Protein backbone atom coordinates (compact mmCIF):
# COMPACT_ATOMS: atom_id res chain seq x y z
CA UNK A 1 0.00 0.00 0.00
CA UNK A 2 1.17 3.50 -0.77
CA UNK A 3 2.97 5.45 1.92
CA UNK A 4 2.12 8.95 0.68
CA UNK A 5 -1.48 10.02 0.17
CA UNK A 6 -2.46 12.57 -2.44
CA UNK A 7 -4.67 15.24 -0.92
CA UNK A 8 -4.47 18.00 -3.54
CA UNK A 9 -3.19 18.91 -7.01
CA UNK A 10 -4.50 15.77 -8.63
CA UNK A 11 -5.35 17.30 -11.96
CA UNK A 12 -1.88 17.00 -13.39
CA UNK A 13 -0.87 15.01 -16.46
CA UNK A 14 -0.18 11.33 -15.82
CA UNK A 15 3.41 10.13 -16.18
CA UNK A 16 4.21 6.46 -16.84
CA UNK A 17 7.21 4.76 -15.30
CA UNK A 18 8.13 1.36 -13.93
CA UNK A 19 8.78 0.41 -10.32
CA UNK A 20 10.73 -2.80 -9.86
CA UNK A 21 9.72 -3.74 -13.39
CA UNK A 22 6.00 -3.19 -12.93
CA UNK A 23 4.20 -0.37 -14.74
CA UNK A 24 3.21 2.52 -12.48
CA UNK A 25 1.73 5.96 -12.76
CA UNK A 26 2.62 9.29 -11.25
CA UNK A 27 1.75 12.90 -11.98
CA UNK A 28 3.82 15.47 -13.78
CA UNK A 29 5.68 17.52 -11.19
CA UNK A 30 6.02 14.63 -8.78
CA UNK A 31 9.43 14.04 -7.36
CA UNK A 32 10.80 10.55 -7.79
CA UNK A 33 10.12 10.14 -4.08
CA UNK A 34 6.46 11.05 -4.46
CA UNK A 35 6.13 8.84 -7.53
CA UNK A 36 7.57 5.83 -5.73
CA UNK A 37 5.86 6.34 -2.39
CA UNK A 38 2.41 6.89 -3.89
CA UNK A 39 2.92 3.48 -5.53
CA UNK A 40 4.75 1.65 -2.78
CA UNK A 41 6.06 1.92 0.69
CA UNK A 42 9.79 2.23 0.37
CA UNK A 43 12.53 3.76 -1.76
CA UNK A 44 15.36 1.39 -1.01
CA UNK A 45 16.85 -0.88 1.59
CA UNK A 46 19.74 0.14 3.78
CA UNK A 47 23.07 -1.22 2.61
CA UNK A 48 24.04 -2.60 5.98
CA UNK A 49 20.94 -3.94 7.68
CA UNK A 50 18.63 -4.37 4.71
CA UNK A 51 15.94 -2.43 6.52
CA UNK A 52 13.47 -0.45 4.41
CA UNK A 53 13.97 3.28 3.94
CA UNK A 54 11.61 5.85 2.50
CA UNK A 55 13.44 9.15 2.87
CA UNK A 56 13.12 11.38 5.90
CA UNK A 57 13.63 15.09 5.33
CA UNK A 58 12.33 15.64 1.77
CA UNK A 59 14.65 18.63 1.47
CA UNK A 60 17.98 17.23 0.40
CA UNK A 61 19.53 17.07 3.86
CA UNK A 62 19.32 13.49 5.13
CA UNK A 63 20.45 11.68 1.95
CA UNK A 64 18.25 8.77 2.90
CA UNK A 65 16.39 8.74 -0.40
CA UNK A 66 19.01 7.72 -2.96
CA UNK A 67 17.39 5.30 -5.39
CA UNK A 68 18.60 3.39 -8.40
CA UNK A 69 17.36 3.15 -11.94
CA UNK A 70 17.61 -0.02 -13.99
CA UNK A 71 20.36 1.73 -15.97
CA UNK A 72 22.39 1.96 -12.77
CA UNK A 73 21.96 5.68 -12.26
CA UNK A 74 21.51 6.97 -8.71
CA UNK A 75 19.00 9.70 -7.98
CA UNK A 76 18.25 11.65 -4.85
CA UNK A 77 14.55 10.92 -4.96
CA UNK A 78 13.31 14.00 -3.10
CA UNK A 79 15.16 16.34 -5.43
CA UNK A 80 14.63 14.69 -8.81
CA UNK A 81 11.47 14.83 -10.90
CA UNK A 82 9.74 11.83 -12.38
CA UNK A 83 9.75 11.53 -16.17
CA UNK A 84 8.01 9.26 -18.61
CA UNK A 85 9.81 5.99 -19.12
CA UNK A 86 11.90 6.05 -15.94
CA UNK A 87 12.66 2.58 -14.66
CA UNK A 88 13.08 2.79 -10.92
CA UNK A 89 14.12 0.15 -8.43
CA UNK A 90 13.38 -0.17 -4.74
CA UNK A 91 14.80 -3.67 -4.46
CA UNK A 92 17.84 -5.54 -5.48
CA UNK A 93 21.35 -4.28 -5.38
CA UNK A 94 22.38 -5.41 -1.94
CA UNK A 95 20.42 -8.65 -1.83
CA UNK A 96 20.96 -9.08 1.89
CA UNK A 97 24.74 -9.18 1.79
CA UNK A 98 27.59 -7.37 0.19
CA UNK A 99 28.23 -9.79 -2.64
CA UNK A 100 26.72 -8.27 -5.71
CA UNK A 101 27.64 -7.80 -9.31
CA UNK A 102 31.22 -7.90 -10.54
CA UNK A 103 33.81 -10.41 -9.77
CA UNK A 104 37.39 -11.10 -8.95
Amino acid at each position, binding site marked *: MALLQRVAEQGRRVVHFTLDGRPAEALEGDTVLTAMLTNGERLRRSEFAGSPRAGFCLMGACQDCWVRTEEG*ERLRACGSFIADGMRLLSEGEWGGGLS*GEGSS
Partner: protein
Amino acid sequence: MRERIDCDVAIVGGGIVGGSAALFLRQAGLSVTLLERDWCGAKASGVNFGGVRRQGRPLEQLALSQRAHAIWGRLPELIGTDAEYVRSGHLKLARSEADLASLVAYRERSRGFGLDLEIIEGEAFRRRWPALGERAVGGSLCPEDGHANPRLVSPAFARAAAALGAVVREQTAIERVEKDGGRFVLLAKRELAAGELEVRARVLLNTAGAWSRRVADAFGEAVPLESLHPNMAVTEPLPRFLDVNIGVEGGGVYGRQVLRGNMVVGGGRGFALDPDRARPQRDAVLTLMRDAAELFPQLRHAHVIRCWTGVEGYTPDRNPVIGPSRTTPGLYHAFGFSGAGFQIGPAVGQTLAELVTAGETAMPLEAFRIDRFPPAPPDNP
Protein backbone atom coordinates in the same frame (compact mmCIF):
# COMPACT_ATOMS: atom_id res chain seq x y z
CA MET B 1 52.62 24.55 38.83
CA ARG B 2 54.79 22.28 36.82
CA GLU B 3 54.22 18.55 36.67
CA ARG B 4 57.34 16.43 36.26
CA ILE B 5 57.68 12.96 34.82
CA ASP B 6 60.91 11.00 34.88
CA CYS B 7 61.21 8.02 32.59
CA ASP B 8 63.54 5.94 30.49
CA VAL B 9 62.15 6.95 27.13
CA ALA B 10 60.20 10.02 26.01
CA ILE B 11 58.47 9.85 22.65
CA VAL B 12 57.39 12.94 20.76
CA GLY B 13 54.47 12.08 18.48
CA GLY B 14 51.78 9.44 18.94
CA GLY B 15 51.27 8.33 15.35
CA ILE B 16 51.67 4.72 14.32
CA VAL B 17 55.44 4.98 14.66
CA GLY B 18 55.50 6.57 18.12
CA GLY B 19 52.58 4.46 19.30
CA SER B 20 54.14 1.17 18.24
CA ALA B 21 57.53 2.17 19.65
CA ALA B 22 55.83 2.85 22.98
CA LEU B 23 54.15 -0.54 22.87
CA PHE B 24 57.33 -2.49 22.13
CA LEU B 25 59.34 -0.53 24.67
CA ARG B 26 56.78 -1.32 27.33
CA GLN B 27 56.92 -4.96 26.34
CA ALA B 28 60.66 -4.72 26.99
CA GLY B 29 59.92 -3.26 30.41
CA LEU B 30 61.16 0.30 29.99
CA SER B 31 59.25 3.23 31.40
CA VAL B 32 57.80 5.25 28.56
CA THR B 33 56.09 8.61 28.18
CA LEU B 34 54.29 9.20 24.88
CA LEU B 35 53.51 12.83 24.15
CA GLU B 36 50.98 13.79 21.53
CA ARG B 37 49.92 17.29 20.59
CA ASP B 38 46.62 16.18 19.04
CA TRP B 39 45.05 12.78 19.69
CA CYS B 40 47.18 9.69 19.13
CA GLY B 41 46.86 8.53 15.56
CA ALA B 42 44.84 11.55 14.47
CA LYS B 43 47.33 12.91 11.95
CA ALA B 44 48.84 11.08 8.96
CA SER B 45 48.55 7.71 10.69
CA GLY B 46 44.80 8.06 11.13
CA VAL B 47 43.81 9.66 7.84
CA ASN B 48 45.88 7.82 5.29
CA PHE B 49 44.65 5.68 2.43
CA GLY B 50 44.92 2.52 4.48
CA GLY B 51 47.14 0.66 2.05
CA VAL B 52 49.10 -2.07 3.83
CA ARG B 53 51.42 -2.80 0.98
CA ARG B 54 54.94 -4.07 0.57
CA GLN B 55 54.87 -4.36 -3.20
CA GLY B 56 56.51 -1.49 -5.00
CA ARG B 57 58.63 -0.28 -2.11
CA PRO B 58 62.30 0.44 -2.74
CA LEU B 59 64.38 -2.65 -1.96
CA GLU B 60 66.08 -0.99 0.99
CA GLN B 61 62.68 -0.84 2.76
CA LEU B 62 61.74 -4.46 2.19
CA ALA B 63 63.39 -5.96 5.25
CA LEU B 64 61.50 -3.55 7.49
CA SER B 65 58.40 -4.07 5.43
CA GLN B 66 58.60 -7.84 5.92
CA ARG B 67 59.03 -7.33 9.61
CA ALA B 68 55.95 -5.14 9.61
CA HIS B 69 54.07 -7.79 7.68
CA ALA B 70 54.55 -10.18 10.56
CA ILE B 71 53.31 -7.59 13.05
CA TRP B 72 50.20 -6.85 10.97
CA GLY B 73 49.45 -10.56 11.12
CA ARG B 74 49.25 -10.35 14.91
CA LEU B 75 47.14 -7.22 15.26
CA PRO B 76 44.33 -8.54 17.46
CA GLU B 77 46.80 -10.05 19.89
CA LEU B 78 48.93 -6.90 19.93
CA ILE B 79 46.40 -4.08 19.93
CA GLY B 80 43.09 -5.75 20.66
CA THR B 81 41.43 -5.11 17.31
CA ASP B 82 41.77 -6.37 13.75
CA ALA B 83 41.05 -2.79 12.67
CA GLU B 84 39.42 -4.10 9.49
CA TYR B 85 42.79 -5.35 8.29
CA VAL B 86 42.43 -7.80 5.42
CA ARG B 87 45.08 -9.57 3.39
CA SER B 88 43.21 -8.93 0.21
CA GLY B 89 46.24 -8.88 -2.02
CA HIS B 90 47.70 -5.80 -3.67
CA LEU B 91 47.46 -5.73 -7.43
CA LYS B 92 49.62 -3.35 -9.33
CA LEU B 93 48.25 -2.74 -12.79
CA ALA B 94 50.26 -2.34 -15.95
CA ARG B 95 48.62 -0.21 -18.57
CA SER B 96 51.25 -0.98 -21.20
CA GLU B 97 53.74 -3.67 -22.09
CA ALA B 98 56.50 -1.39 -20.87
CA ASP B 99 54.82 -1.05 -17.48
CA LEU B 100 54.37 -4.79 -17.33
CA ALA B 101 58.06 -5.21 -18.07
CA SER B 102 58.96 -2.97 -15.17
CA LEU B 103 56.67 -4.99 -12.89
CA VAL B 104 58.47 -8.12 -14.02
CA ALA B 105 61.80 -6.45 -13.35
CA TYR B 106 60.66 -5.48 -9.84
CA ARG B 107 59.61 -9.06 -9.16
CA GLU B 108 63.11 -10.21 -10.13
CA ARG B 109 64.85 -7.57 -8.04
CA SER B 110 62.71 -8.21 -4.99
CA ARG B 111 63.09 -12.01 -5.07
CA GLY B 112 64.36 -13.34 -1.79
CA PHE B 113 62.34 -10.90 0.32
CA GLY B 114 59.32 -13.17 0.36
CA LEU B 115 56.77 -10.99 -1.39
CA ASP B 116 55.67 -13.93 -3.58
CA LEU B 117 54.81 -11.64 -6.46
CA GLU B 118 52.80 -13.16 -9.23
CA ILE B 119 52.62 -11.65 -12.71
CA ILE B 120 49.30 -12.23 -14.40
CA GLU B 121 48.56 -11.07 -17.90
CA GLY B 122 46.43 -11.46 -20.99
CA GLU B 123 43.54 -13.90 -20.93
CA ALA B 124 44.36 -15.15 -17.41
CA PHE B 125 44.26 -11.58 -16.11
CA ARG B 126 40.91 -10.85 -17.73
CA ARG B 127 39.44 -14.09 -16.43
CA ARG B 128 40.59 -13.41 -12.91
CA TRP B 129 39.57 -9.75 -12.76
CA PRO B 130 36.90 -9.21 -15.35
CA ALA B 131 36.05 -5.98 -13.54
CA LEU B 132 39.47 -4.59 -14.48
CA GLY B 133 40.39 -6.48 -17.60
CA GLU B 134 39.98 -3.85 -20.24
CA ARG B 135 42.09 -1.17 -18.70
CA ALA B 136 45.25 -3.08 -18.02
CA VAL B 137 47.37 -5.50 -19.97
CA GLY B 138 48.22 -7.29 -16.78
CA GLY B 139 49.42 -6.80 -13.28
CA SER B 140 51.58 -7.93 -10.44
CA LEU B 141 49.82 -9.42 -7.43
CA CYS B 142 51.26 -9.51 -3.96
CA PRO B 143 48.78 -11.96 -2.48
CA GLU B 144 49.45 -11.24 1.20
CA ASP B 145 49.38 -7.45 0.99
CA GLY B 146 46.14 -5.77 1.95
CA HIS B 147 44.48 -2.83 3.58
CA ALA B 148 43.13 -1.68 6.94
CA ASN B 149 41.18 1.11 8.56
CA PRO B 150 43.77 3.66 9.65
CA ARG B 151 41.35 5.46 11.96
CA LEU B 152 41.16 2.31 14.05
CA VAL B 153 44.70 0.91 13.76
CA SER B 154 46.76 3.88 14.71
CA PRO B 155 45.06 5.03 17.90
CA ALA B 156 44.99 1.39 19.00
CA PHE B 157 48.78 1.17 19.17
CA ALA B 158 48.97 4.01 21.66
CA ARG B 159 46.05 2.56 23.56
CA ALA B 160 47.76 -0.83 23.78
CA ALA B 161 50.93 0.86 25.01
CA ALA B 162 48.92 2.66 27.69
CA ALA B 163 47.32 -0.61 28.72
CA LEU B 164 50.83 -1.97 29.30
CA GLY B 165 51.68 0.97 31.47
CA ALA B 166 53.03 3.61 29.15
CA VAL B 167 52.18 7.15 30.21
CA VAL B 168 50.27 8.58 27.26
CA ARG B 169 49.56 12.29 27.27
CA GLU B 170 47.35 13.66 24.53
CA GLN B 171 46.64 17.32 23.79
CA THR B 172 50.16 17.87 24.99
CA ALA B 173 52.50 19.68 22.63
CA ILE B 174 56.24 19.59 23.13
CA GLU B 175 57.41 23.16 22.85
CA ARG B 176 61.04 22.80 23.85
CA VAL B 177 63.58 19.99 23.98
CA GLU B 178 67.13 20.09 25.18
CA LYS B 179 69.70 17.80 26.64
CA ASP B 180 70.78 18.55 30.16
CA GLY B 181 73.82 16.41 30.88
CA GLY B 182 72.73 12.81 30.50
CA ARG B 183 69.02 13.53 30.30
CA PHE B 184 66.64 14.99 27.79
CA VAL B 185 64.32 17.65 29.13
CA LEU B 186 61.07 18.25 27.36
CA LEU B 187 58.66 21.06 28.08
CA ALA B 188 55.07 20.63 27.05
CA LYS B 189 52.06 22.87 26.78
CA ARG B 190 48.84 21.17 27.74
CA GLU B 191 45.39 21.78 26.37
CA LEU B 192 43.47 19.82 28.96
CA ALA B 193 45.34 20.54 32.18
CA ALA B 194 46.70 23.59 33.87
CA GLY B 195 50.37 24.32 34.10
CA GLU B 196 53.32 22.97 32.19
CA LEU B 197 54.57 19.47 31.94
CA GLU B 198 58.25 18.65 32.15
CA VAL B 199 59.43 15.24 31.03
CA ARG B 200 62.95 13.99 31.75
CA ALA B 201 64.22 10.94 29.96
CA ARG B 202 67.38 9.06 29.19
CA VAL B 203 66.27 8.43 25.62
CA LEU B 204 64.29 10.58 23.22
CA LEU B 205 62.41 9.32 20.17
CA ASN B 206 61.56 11.84 17.50
CA THR B 207 58.48 10.42 15.82
CA ALA B 208 56.70 13.70 15.22
CA GLY B 209 55.74 12.96 11.62
CA ALA B 210 55.76 15.94 9.29
CA TRP B 211 56.76 18.11 12.26
CA SER B 212 59.88 16.11 13.19
CA ARG B 213 62.17 18.70 11.76
CA ARG B 214 61.68 20.92 14.77
CA VAL B 215 63.05 18.27 17.09
CA ALA B 216 65.91 17.41 14.73
CA ASP B 217 66.78 21.07 14.37
CA ALA B 218 66.97 21.48 18.10
CA PHE B 219 69.89 19.08 18.06
CA GLY B 220 71.62 20.58 15.07
CA GLU B 221 70.34 18.09 12.54
CA ALA B 222 68.60 20.15 9.94
CA VAL B 223 67.04 17.85 7.37
CA PRO B 224 65.16 18.74 4.22
CA LEU B 225 61.60 17.68 5.02
CA GLU B 226 58.66 18.88 3.03
CA SER B 227 54.98 18.59 3.91
CA LEU B 228 52.72 17.25 1.18
CA HIS B 229 49.09 16.27 1.21
CA PRO B 230 47.88 13.18 -0.64
CA ASN B 231 44.31 13.63 -1.80
CA MET B 232 41.67 11.05 -0.82
CA ALA B 233 38.02 10.48 -1.62
CA VAL B 234 35.47 7.87 -0.64
CA THR B 235 32.26 6.90 -2.36
CA GLU B 236 28.95 5.80 -0.96
CA PRO B 237 28.73 2.03 -0.36
CA LEU B 238 28.58 0.03 -3.57
CA PRO B 239 28.02 -3.66 -4.22
CA ARG B 240 31.34 -5.45 -3.97
CA PHE B 241 33.20 -5.56 -7.24
CA LEU B 242 36.79 -5.40 -6.06
CA ASP B 243 38.57 -7.59 -3.57
CA VAL B 244 42.14 -6.42 -4.03
CA ASN B 245 43.92 -3.21 -3.15
CA ILE B 246 44.76 -1.59 -6.49
CA GLY B 247 47.74 0.49 -7.50
CA VAL B 248 48.95 1.47 -10.93
CA GLU B 249 52.52 1.13 -12.16
CA GLY B 250 53.88 4.61 -12.72
CA GLY B 251 51.54 6.13 -10.15
CA GLY B 252 48.30 8.00 -10.57
CA VAL B 253 45.13 6.76 -9.00
CA TYR B 254 44.84 3.96 -6.44
CA GLY B 255 41.80 2.37 -4.84
CA ARG B 256 40.42 -0.19 -2.46
CA GLN B 257 36.90 -1.25 -1.66
CA VAL B 258 36.19 -1.72 2.02
CA LEU B 259 34.07 -4.55 3.29
CA ARG B 260 31.10 -2.23 3.76
CA GLY B 261 31.21 -1.41 0.08
CA ASN B 262 32.66 2.10 0.06
CA MET B 263 35.37 2.65 -2.49
CA VAL B 264 38.34 4.62 -1.18
CA VAL B 265 40.46 6.24 -3.88
CA GLY B 266 43.54 8.41 -3.78
CA GLY B 267 45.59 10.53 -6.15
CA GLY B 268 46.79 14.07 -6.56
CA ARG B 269 47.48 16.49 -3.76
CA GLY B 270 45.63 18.75 -1.38
CA PHE B 271 46.88 22.06 -0.07
CA ALA B 272 47.96 23.37 3.31
CA LEU B 273 45.72 25.65 5.33
CA ASP B 274 48.57 26.11 7.78
CA PRO B 275 51.45 23.89 8.91
CA ASP B 276 49.06 21.67 10.84
CA ARG B 277 46.06 21.33 8.59
CA ALA B 278 45.39 20.62 4.95
CA ARG B 279 42.41 20.39 2.63
CA PRO B 280 41.70 18.50 -0.55
CA GLN B 281 42.21 20.68 -3.59
CA ARG B 282 39.30 21.10 -5.98
CA ASP B 283 41.09 20.30 -9.22
CA ALA B 284 42.79 17.35 -7.65
CA VAL B 285 39.44 16.05 -6.44
CA LEU B 286 37.85 16.32 -9.86
CA THR B 287 40.89 14.83 -11.56
CA LEU B 288 40.94 11.99 -9.06
CA MET B 289 37.26 11.27 -9.70
CA ARG B 290 37.82 11.23 -13.45
CA ASP B 291 40.84 8.94 -13.18
CA ALA B 292 39.05 6.67 -10.73
CA ALA B 293 35.97 6.38 -12.95
CA GLU B 294 38.20 5.54 -15.87
CA LEU B 295 39.98 2.82 -13.95
CA PHE B 296 36.84 1.52 -12.24
CA PRO B 297 33.80 1.87 -14.52
CA GLN B 298 31.75 0.51 -11.61
CA LEU B 299 32.03 4.02 -10.16
CA ARG B 300 30.34 5.61 -13.17
CA HIS B 301 27.08 6.29 -11.32
CA ALA B 302 28.49 6.50 -7.82
CA HIS B 303 28.90 9.57 -5.63
CA VAL B 304 31.83 10.79 -3.62
CA ILE B 305 30.60 11.44 -0.10
CA ARG B 306 33.79 12.74 1.49
CA CYS B 307 37.22 14.00 0.53
CA TRP B 308 40.17 14.56 2.79
CA THR B 309 43.90 14.76 2.95
CA GLY B 310 46.58 14.77 5.61
CA VAL B 311 49.96 16.22 6.44
CA GLU B 312 52.85 13.95 5.59
CA GLY B 313 56.60 14.62 5.67
CA TYR B 314 58.51 13.87 2.46
CA THR B 315 62.27 13.63 2.04
CA PRO B 316 64.09 14.41 -1.22
CA ASP B 317 64.86 10.72 -1.89
CA ARG B 318 61.47 9.53 -0.61
CA ASN B 319 63.09 7.23 1.92
CA PRO B 320 62.53 7.86 5.62
CA VAL B 321 65.03 8.90 8.23
CA ILE B 322 65.33 6.06 10.77
CA GLY B 323 68.03 5.58 13.33
CA PRO B 324 70.29 7.25 15.85
CA SER B 325 71.09 10.92 15.83
CA ARG B 326 74.60 11.73 14.61
CA THR B 327 74.97 14.58 17.06
CA THR B 328 73.28 13.50 20.25
CA PRO B 329 73.58 10.15 21.99
CA GLY B 330 70.24 8.79 23.18
CA LEU B 331 68.24 10.53 20.47
CA TYR B 332 66.62 8.46 17.72
CA HIS B 333 64.71 9.70 14.71
CA ALA B 334 61.97 8.09 12.63
CA PHE B 335 60.13 10.31 10.20
CA GLY B 336 59.91 11.36 6.57
CA PHE B 337 58.01 8.31 5.38
CA SER B 338 57.08 10.14 2.24
CA GLY B 339 53.56 8.81 1.85
CA ALA B 340 54.26 5.18 2.73
CA GLY B 341 54.82 4.86 6.47
CA PHE B 342 51.56 3.23 7.47
CA GLN B 343 52.53 -0.30 6.51
CA ILE B 344 56.08 -0.20 7.86
CA GLY B 345 55.22 2.00 10.85
CA PRO B 346 54.86 -0.82 13.40
CA ALA B 347 58.17 -2.38 12.34
CA VAL B 348 59.85 0.98 12.69
CA GLY B 349 58.48 1.19 16.22
CA GLN B 350 59.79 -2.27 16.98
CA THR B 351 63.18 -1.45 15.51
CA LEU B 352 63.42 1.75 17.55
CA ALA B 353 62.65 -0.30 20.63
CA GLU B 354 65.52 -2.64 19.76
CA LEU B 355 67.91 0.21 19.23
CA VAL B 356 66.98 1.60 22.63
CA THR B 357 67.10 -1.67 24.54
CA ALA B 358 69.92 -3.49 22.75
CA GLY B 359 71.78 -0.65 21.10
CA GLU B 360 71.58 -2.46 17.78
CA THR B 361 69.21 -4.05 15.32
CA ALA B 362 69.36 -6.60 12.57
CA MET B 363 67.39 -4.28 10.34
CA PRO B 364 69.45 -2.59 7.64
CA LEU B 365 69.09 1.14 8.30
CA GLU B 366 72.03 2.46 6.33
CA ALA B 367 69.83 3.97 3.62
CA PHE B 368 67.90 5.88 6.24
CA ARG B 369 70.77 7.68 7.97
CA ILE B 370 69.92 11.23 8.90
CA ASP B 371 73.24 12.56 7.67
CA ARG B 372 72.76 11.33 4.12
CA PHE B 373 71.42 14.72 3.03
CA PRO B 374 73.47 17.85 2.66
CA PRO B 375 72.50 19.94 5.70
CA ALA B 376 69.41 22.05 5.12
CA PRO B 377 69.38 25.66 6.23
CA PRO B 378 68.41 25.76 9.89
CA ASP B 379 64.85 26.44 10.77
CA ASN B 380 63.77 29.83 12.01
CA PRO B 381 60.10 29.79 12.88
